[in-house]
């Protein structure tokens, strides 16, 4: 019954927690006890189980396909698929936004509608604690979830295929999980922003889903229309074609989803050497092989910076509109 105050009592009875930590504590326990989180967890768990089992059943083909030996077999667990079910990292790029949106869409407006926001804000806490504690708690919960999922896949793979991952592979998996958390936190911040802006949780959830649909479905249609219009003629110079390719790619790179999939493919597939167009001259003379982790990360550095920037922009927007707001009771 009184499990919420067990959290703080675990650390001795005499010292009080910092109010911010008390708020984060409460938010975490609220998330974990909510039905919404259970359902999400189940959903994510099942899809990942599915994609991993597909990957495991296909991994022998992957091994046969590149018999050179140096290929990163373990990482194939995260990328292999036979076409019936998408691979693990595609699943994450699909479910990640959903996770972030669902965790944050009612963060602020639900408190406002219940009348608890004005009560909390009349306690001696800074106003941004409310926003920050919501964000921190959600990120902690999501990180724990993503890391356990990632390691669960690693462990299952280890048992199933019997080949331990190398240190390099393990680090790549860790970076993949970190990038996923970053990607999810972008969506989380976007939905927290909507929850500050809209009074009704339903509206903010809908707004979040609308943005998600626009970015995943309609934006690419829009880009292909623009691309068709801007297509250079058949006898254009190589430079023009290159410029055109760059232009279309840059249009896609506005999408956080594109940034995420660029970043994860590069990290999980060490043979990816560049994300831009390649000319024959560039490939000519290169020795086929894989990149070390540091170089892979260097390739996706702009993508990571872009994701961080998008996340920070959403956070700043919600911060500004929340701090300026007048908080009335219901």
């Amino acid at each position, binding site marked *: *019954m*009184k499990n*919420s*105050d067990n959290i*703080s*009592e675990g650390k001795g*009875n*005499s*010292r*009080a*927690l*910092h*109010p911010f930590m*008390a*708020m984060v504590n*409460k938010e975490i326990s609220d998330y974990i006890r909510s039905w919404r989180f259970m359902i999400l967890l189940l959903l994510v768990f099942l899809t990942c189980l599915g994609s991993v089992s597909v990957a495991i059943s296909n991994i022998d083909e992957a091994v046969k396909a590149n018999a050179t030996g140096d290929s990163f077999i373990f990482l194939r667990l995260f990328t292999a698929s036979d076409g019936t079910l998408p691979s693990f990292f595609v699943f994450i790029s699909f479910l990640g936004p959903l996770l972030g949106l669902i965790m944050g869409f009612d963060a602020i407006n639900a408190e406002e509608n*219940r*009348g*608890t*926001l*004005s*009560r*909390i*804000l*009349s*306690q*001696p*806490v*800074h*106003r941004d604690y409310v926003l920050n504690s919501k964000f921190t708690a959600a990120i902690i919960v999501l990180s724990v979830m993503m890391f356990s999922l990632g390691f669960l896949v690693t462990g299952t793979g280890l048992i199933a295929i019997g080949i331990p991952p190398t240190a390099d592979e393990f680090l790549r998996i860790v970076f993949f999980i970190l990038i996923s958390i970053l990607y999810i936190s972008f969506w989380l911040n976007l939905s927290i922003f909507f929850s500050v802006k809209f009074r009704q949780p339903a509206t903010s959830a809908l707004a979040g889903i609308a943005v998600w649909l626009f970015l995943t479905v309609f934006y690419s249609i829009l880009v292909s229309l623009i691309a068709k219009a801007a297509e250079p003629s058949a006898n254009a110079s190589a430079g023009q074609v290159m410029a055109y390719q760059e232009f279309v790619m840059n249009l896609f790179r506005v999408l956080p989803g594109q940034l995420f999939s660029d970043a994860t493919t590069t990290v999980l597939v060490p043979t990816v050497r560049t994300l831009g167009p390649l000319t024959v001259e560039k490939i000519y003379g290169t020795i086929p092989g894989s990149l070390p982790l540091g170089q892979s990360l260097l390739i996706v550095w702009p993508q990571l910076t872009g994701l961080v920037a998008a996340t920070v922009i959403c956070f700043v927007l919600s911060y500004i509109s929340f701090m300026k707001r*007048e*908080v*009335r*009771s*219901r």
Partner: protein
Amino acid sequence: MEGPVIELTDLTKKYGSFTAVGNLSLSVDKGEIFGLLGPNGAGKSTTILMMLGLTEPTSGTLRVCGINPTTNPVEVKRKVGYLPEDVGFYEDYTGFENLMYTARLNSIPPREARERVMHLLERVGLSGEESKKAGKYSRGMRQRLGLADVLVKEPEVIILDEPTLGIDPRGVNEFLALIKRLSREEKNTVLLSSHHLHQIQTVCDRVGIFVGGHLIAVGDIDTLSRELFPHEPMVIKAGVSLDDIYNRYFEGYEKQR
């Protein structure tokens, strides 16, 4: 630190062209129960929000316990307890847990908090109900839980915004008696806003009458009636109010049981 606990000087709050509060000057002394009386939308709640730093004044200055709430809201909120008009609790937490959370936000050590919360629940008449979910509380119980919630931090100043809204007449009397008793025992300063003259009359030492964002008169009830209606003869009316009938009926009913 003697002198007024709450001091407002030329306070103005505008929403666009609408003036919610205009040139308000007011001071409340320590230990006083001050009533803000006025119709709905007179700017009472806005004034209270400004005192807590929950909204910024357009012009003018405020001092609560000698601190400026606009620039230093956290310090003010350490000393001021505020019961909003329609107080909300986390409905899937018990009454006890809700108060414990407030205690934690006030950095009260757990053991002390537990004792204090149990004591307060007893004082507001909710002992025995503490392990019930706050969502299952009735309106009157929620309001009493709200009062306990305000008292958890042991405030110097208590601000109550329409605390009796939606409680039955008997509950109102109990609630007001509770406020009066608490303020006398703890020497707290209480600011109470209401649109019921009767309620203000029974508990407040001084009253400020608020209409259309302006304070039109301040003083104790006797002075006010003399000031506002100097030429009217004293009229004594005898009668039975509905409240009395209600109270009598229910007391009789309870005795029968």
